[in-house]
């Protein structure tokens, strides 16, 4: 019985020592993991916000394609409107 008690005590002490040694590292890893998750969340939210903001700007058109890169897309949308305003004869 006494032998069992000693053995348990030694095991308890070993476990305590191991915890004292490993717990800070484990805690650090956990903290870093949390920070990483938070950073990813922030980047995601920012990305989605920028994406939504860009597509919520009233541009007057959905998209533009051109076989040459002479003018920006907005130029062709302006042209589409301008030509409509030219009076027909």
């Amino acid at each position: 019985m006494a032998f069992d008690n000693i053995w348990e005590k030694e095991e308890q002490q070993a476990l305590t020592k191991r915890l004292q040694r490993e717990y800070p590292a484990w805690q650090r890893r956990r903290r870093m993991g949390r920070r990483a998750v938070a950073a990813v969340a922030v980047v995601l939210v920012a990305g989605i916000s920028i994406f939504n903001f860009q597509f919520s700007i009233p541009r007057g058109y959905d998209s533009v394609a051109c076989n040459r890169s002479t003018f920006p897309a907005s130029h062709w949308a302006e042209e589409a409107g301008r030509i409509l305003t030219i009076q027909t004869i």
Partner: protein
Amino acid sequence: MKRFIYIALSLMALATACTKEAPTDGDRLYHRYASREDLTVAQVRGFHLADTVKVDVVLLVADDSAAWQGLKEELDIRTTEGVTSWLGDIDEPARRVKRSEVPLWRVMAVHDDRTVALYRVESAAQFDALRDYQLDRIECNK
């Protein structure tokens, strides 16, 4: 795990293939002229005429007078100045059609700019919005 990844990738490829949009009339017209070296071709998708009304627009700009002459012959434009306007067939814009033959192109050829603008119209709302847009802007410019 590998099998799961393969299945997921296959499903993603299948979903992408299924959601691929069919080419519109504007796409077809754009690609018909896009390879021409004497033309600048632009396509404006969903040009906003009013709050809820949009049209697809294809613009053909001739780079020089020879290209403009060629484009005029292709589209059977016989005038030499000002603006010429007609309703053109959706597959062959040079062919003049009636308003009832929707969808169609509302074509405007501007001689001074050597430009042809084609507005795809298929509903009464788009016809009305095109007319109102034109009238509003002309009134504003007076």
